[in-house]
């Protein structure tokens, strides 16, 4: 009997060792994505605090709507409507995520002109509303877009009580602003805890920490604060989320470019 168990334990452990680091990295990221499936739609409110290296602050507030696209060949839909600074109140950005290498589709609503304008979304390295987040940083990780490689398991940098899988993500798209990212995903709930961004030269450029996770509807984890620090410039952006509301009955047609005017009010 002992030999029988030993045989199976060797066979089982042999399967684990047979899994390459790339497969393991991909499976961890995929699990993180799969655990967040089924949120249908979510609305939230955000405050973005931009700090320069001298400590000067600027604040932007916005509302966010996201619609989950169940078709894996299509991406999610999202709307961001700015409420402050007051002079850009009502400016709204609609994004239809696409699977790489196709650029996302984006439309901007300009309330002063009452105009919806399709804009180029090829600027994935550009700063999102002058923050330390690039458009690329804000998009969801799609397994097809990266080569994920598991590196090691270590203590989570954001919470010493948790263990994290450390995974390297190399983008397949040459337009990416990064040579690689190092992602820390906790092994308990498979939540992103920290991401380090390395520029095209291979230097560490930015670090993103996820702080204050809360669980909604007994399933979906969302961090209260996303803190992005630019190591090279000393600038930082704190993105604070609140008032999450899931499954509000939003429809795909609510993410039509023509509906941006309504969202902007």
């Amino acid at each position, binding site marked *: 009997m002992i030999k029988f168990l030993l045989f199976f334990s060797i066979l089982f452990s042999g399967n684990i060792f047979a899994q390459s680091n790339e497969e393991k990295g991909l499976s961890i990221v995929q699990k993180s994505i799969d655990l967040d499936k089924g949120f249908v739609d979510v609305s939230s409110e955000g405050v973005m605090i*931009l700090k320069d290296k001298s400590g000067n602050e600027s604040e932007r507030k916005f509302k966010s709507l996201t619609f989950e696209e169940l078709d894996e060949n299509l991406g999610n839909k999202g709307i961001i409507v700015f409420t402050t600074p007051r002079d850009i109140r009502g400016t709204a950005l609609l994004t239809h995520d696409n699977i790489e290498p196709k650029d996302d589709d984006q439309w901007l609503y300009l309330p002063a002109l009452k105009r919806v304008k*399709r804009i*180029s979304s*090829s*600027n994935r390295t*550009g700063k999102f509303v002058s923050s330390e987040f690039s458009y690329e940083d804000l998009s969801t990780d799609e397994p097809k877009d990266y080569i994920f490689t598991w590196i090691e398991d270590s203590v989570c940098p954001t919470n010493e009580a948790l263990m994290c899988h450390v995974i390297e993500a190399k983008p397949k798209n040459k337009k990416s602003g990064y040579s690689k990212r190092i992602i820390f995903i906790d092994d308990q709930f498979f939540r992103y805890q920290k991401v380090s961004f390395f520029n095209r030269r291979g230097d560490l450029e930015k670090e993103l920490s996820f702080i204050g996770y809360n669980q909604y509807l007994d399933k979906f984890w969302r961090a209260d604060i996303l803190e992005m620090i630019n190591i090279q410039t000393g600038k930082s952006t704190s993105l604070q989320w609140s008032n999450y509301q899931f499954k509000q009955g939003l429809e795909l047609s609510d993410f*039509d470019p023509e509906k941006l005017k309504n969202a902007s*009010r």
Partner: protein
Amino acid sequence: MKLIILIFLLVIVKPVLAEIYTEQYGSIKLTGTSFFQDVPTDNRNNTKLETDIEYNFYLEKDTIEIKLQSKVKLGNPALKNQFDFNEAYISGYRDNFDYLIGNNIIFWGKSEFFNPVDIINSYDFSRGLNKGEKIGQPMINIKRYLNIGDLDLYLLYPTKNIYPSNEIRSQISFNFDNYSKYSNGASNSNIGYGLRVSGYKGDVDYGFSLYKGNSKDPAINIINSKAVPNYSEIDQLGIDLQITKDSHLYKGEFIYRSDQYDVNGSLSNYFASNLGYEKSFFGIFQKNWDLSLLSEYTYDSRGRTSHTGFQNDIFLGTSLSLNNIQDTQSRFIIINDIDRQTRSLNFSFESRFFSIIRGGLEFYYPLNLDNDLHNSSFKDEANVTIYSKYSF
């Protein structure tokens, strides 16, 4: 008794209040304009000072929305139109369609500098003939969401442009009369209608439109030494397209309009178009700056007798966004009339100051408009405008 009233308020009023969302916001804008030279034969001031106070009230309850935007416009010299409700409507939605009743501003088109298809609103030129602003159009608008795109139907109460008072620059040498003429089917009770299907398919955004009603571009008749707008009834078919390929935007607007007065005051049917190209460069000079190069070519089948002045013109422009905390941006445009080899320059700069003040300047400089039939009245109107705006 007080307890009963309190319970009544808690039970009846609170749920009702809880369902109503309201918001109030607005802005105060101060503007100063200085013209560099006098206009011979008139005594119009070389400076203008204006104060705009805008107040918006928005209410939402269930599927009903109400918006009221009012603006007070004070000026020295005084503006002809000092008060407006450009957005004052009740709107709502039910199943797969929206409706709106009241005054609203509508934009049709894809181009940056000139939009031939954009026809719904009349213009308020109180601040000068080169400072037109859309007037809220009284309308009933029904929108239906279809698989092929969004279908908008409009019923439009007739409106007319507002022209500047005698003291205001920029304008033509004749003073405008308060009286307007209507002819060829137009009248001050002629209900117009519009229809538009708009949407996108892949990289292509499209709009197909139809309009029938009073023209927004009247002929300017000189009667008793006064300029009198003369409106005709027009039909217009329009198509607007944009193709987005990476950082390249290809744009086009095409119209066929019937019974429009030309610059000589003759009715004619014509075709007009505007073809545009925009290319953006992101992160130039290894900074976060974005630079866009814009070009548009306008054509009018009537040639020099076109009422617009954009009969064979090229617009060239650059737009620079610094993508900084202050949202700083600037734009430079040169307008070239190919037929007459005349040009004018426009430059604008805008940024945010002290976190709460949006301010900027606009500069207009005509190079050689003397021989330009449509724009010769602007030949001495080089000016600079400085403004600041506080939003609350």
